[in-house]
């Protein structure tokens, strides 16, 4: 045990000090920051600027209606941004603030004149909403920012709304009837657990995020174990180490040390994520409420650790078998295959967390870390016996793999030269 700790300590300190660890640890939170905070900041800056547009319609009423709908929609957006309504109504990038002027001059010369103005940047945009255009179902919006899809989408909604209102109005409906008939509703998915259940979309995003973190770190640190064993083998320090520590201690120390590095990294990420969600995204605090429960984080820890130990044990065996980085890469793909397969099926499992394939995947030890965790996150009512069985099967498999891989490791680290074939590996396992 003493030796295991010394080996783990060395492994940990050496790794945490490397440049790549520092960069990775900082890069991911920076990326998160970039993806969340920067657009908001940019958007806040943009919302101050106002652009001028002209709406050209066949008659004054239509033009007025379009203008009022655009202005009202803009008002809604602004207040939504401030009061922090539901996230899905809040855009990460609010549309440009337009001051709208109206015109009823639908002559070709007017269009040419407006086009020239937009071209010379004297005017930012104009909308050609003449009766002909409306009949044809296609209004030209002439602007220098043709690719501004947020503005375009937003305008589309406002203008359609305006035209529907004018049409209803022309049929003689009263304003309140029009309002009532155009009232839109939201379809809100709800878990049978009631109103306190977390927001399903946030749940999906958070689970996917956690699954990806688990996948990447297990893969990354499993491969790290393999490479570090390979390095010890090729630098021939193995023999020095073996003169004082047993092969078992070496393998255990390595897995422990590298795993601790992985936990440190994930811990730092979780911490930054925590700080972020409590400060930068206060507006959406309601949304994440109930998504990241302590229970779920605990399950994350359990499945991450079990997955890591299982895969790094396999990787240790592979690292001891091979003699070069190239050989290692071929083998590592085979070892990691179940992990990759789980990720491919993960969205399917999110959609149908109780399907046969999901249940099988969550019990099969090599896919269980990702699949079982996803099921628990997405479907809180996952049967407890299945969770228990999944964990028990994984622990049993880990035990078997430690014995098996330990034997391969013990022989493999002293073997140089050609890559062993399957019968040879079987022989290694049988050695006393």
């Amino acid at each position, binding site marked *: 045990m*003493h*030796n295991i700790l*010394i*080996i783990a300590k*060395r492994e940990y300190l*050496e790794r945490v000090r490397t440049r790549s660890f520092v960069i990775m640890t900082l890069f991911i939170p920076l990326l998160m920051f970039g993806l969340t905070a920067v657009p908001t900041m940019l958007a806040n800056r943009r919302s101050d600027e106002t652009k001028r547009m002209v709406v050209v319609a066949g008659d004054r009423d239509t033009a007025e209606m379009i203008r009022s709908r655009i202005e009202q929609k803009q008002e809604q957006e602004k207040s939504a941004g401030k009061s922090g309504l539901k996230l899905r109504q809040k855009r990460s990038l609010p549309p440009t603030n337009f001051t709208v002027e109206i015109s009823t001059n639908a002559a070709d010369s007017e269009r040419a004149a407006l086009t020239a103005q937009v071209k010379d940047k004297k005017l930012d945009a104009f909308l050609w909403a003449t009766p002909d255009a409306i009949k044809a179902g296609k209004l030209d919006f002439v602007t220098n920012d043709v690719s501004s899809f947020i503005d375009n989408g937003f305008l589309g909604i406002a203008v359609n709304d305006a035209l529907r209102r004018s049409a209803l109005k022309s049929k003689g409906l009263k304003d309140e009837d029009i309002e009532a008939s155009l009232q839109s509703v939201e379809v809100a998915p709800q878990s049978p657990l009631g109103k306190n259940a977390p927001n399903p979309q946030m749940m999906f995003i958070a689970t996917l995020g956690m699954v990806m973190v688990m996948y990447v770190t297990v893969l990354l640190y499993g491969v790290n174990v393999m490479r570090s064993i390979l390095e*010890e083998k090729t*630098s*021939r*320090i*193995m*023999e*020095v*180490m*073996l*003169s*004082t*520590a*047993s092969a078992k201690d070496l393998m255990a120390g390595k897995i422990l040390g590298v795993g601790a590095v992985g936990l440190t990294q994930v811990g730092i990420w979780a911490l930054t994520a925590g700080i972020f969600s409590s400060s930068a995204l206060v507006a959406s605090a309601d949304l994440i409420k109930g998504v990241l429960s302590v229970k779920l984080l605990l399950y994350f820890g359990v499945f991450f650790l079990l997955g890591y130990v299982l895969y790094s044990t396999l990787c240790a065996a592979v690292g001891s078998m091979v003699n070069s980085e190239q050989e290692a890469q071929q083998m590592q793909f085979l070892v990691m295959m179940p992990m990759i397969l789980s990720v491919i099926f993960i969205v399917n499992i999110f959609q149908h967390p109780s399907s046969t394939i999901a249940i099988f995947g969550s019990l099969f030890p090599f896919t269980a870390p990702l699949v079982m965790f996803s099921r628990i996150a997405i479907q809180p009512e996952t049967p407890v016996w299945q969770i228990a069985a999944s964990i028990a099967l994984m622990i049993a498999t880990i035990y078997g793999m430690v014995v098996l891989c330990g034997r391969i490791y013990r022989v493999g680290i*002293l073997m140089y030269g050609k890559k062993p074939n399957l019968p040879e590996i079987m*022989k290694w396992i049988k050695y*006393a």
Partner: protein
Amino acid sequence: MQTIELSNVRKSYDQFVAVNNLSFSISQGAVFGLLGPNGAGKTSTIRMMIGITAPDSGQINLFGKPFERKSLNKVGYLPEERGLYKKMKIIEQLIFLGELHGMTAGNARQQAVNWCKRLEIDAWLQKKVEELSKGMQQKIQFIAALLHDPDFIIMDEPFFGLDPVNATLLKDVMLDLKKQGKTILFSTHRMDQVEKLCDSICLINKGNAVLQGDLKTIKSGYGKCNVQIEYEGNGDFLEKNPLVSAYNNYGNYVEVRLAPGADAQQLLHMVAERSRINKFELMEPSLEEIFINTVGKTNA
């Protein structure tokens, strides 16, 4: 007391027998040479001594007890395949290896600094291994084997790749260790070094011990039947001479093995008749000659 005792040890890998029924022991304070050509089973034997592999059969006693891992804290091992963590600083590396041998970090640091001073490499303590020359790395490896003050030191080809100055430095260290009563095992195929340092030897070939015992006894058993001659002039006395059973011409001098029962004086007269003699010396055979002879015989 016997530091290590092997009795009837056997190790095979599949069909290949690496060590076959090998028995020898090294008494405390002795310098022992484990000799043999490449592939004779030297490294396999050492690996079993320190528990890296287990023998198929036979018994190994270390410090008078059946092998147990905790005895390894009193063993220092310099493997033939040298290796260190390339990215680690020298001092950290030595502390790490010291801790694995049961030292405290502080004690390991102190010893590491002392040894580095003694081997004139203390200026490099804070450098990474990859910045060091081969010879320097060799010294660090040497220190790593001795740091924890082991009672039994195993050195596999210790002088390999060292220049004469450093080789002398290491040789002096080892003589010093011998004085302190440490048991030292050399494994090598370089006979000249063994001859200078060892008290006793075991010569193995193809996994079998072919010659073992006290070095002086072994050599005297061969008798003074060798003559080294430095001469100027005609060397044809070497050919078809009933007094000469074999010879080895080194250019500057020639080593002659006398035929059984031949008289060295007779040879001296014969050579003196034909050439000027600068030196004529009766000698015990060199270990190298014994080695070549014995191994040649067992291979035949």
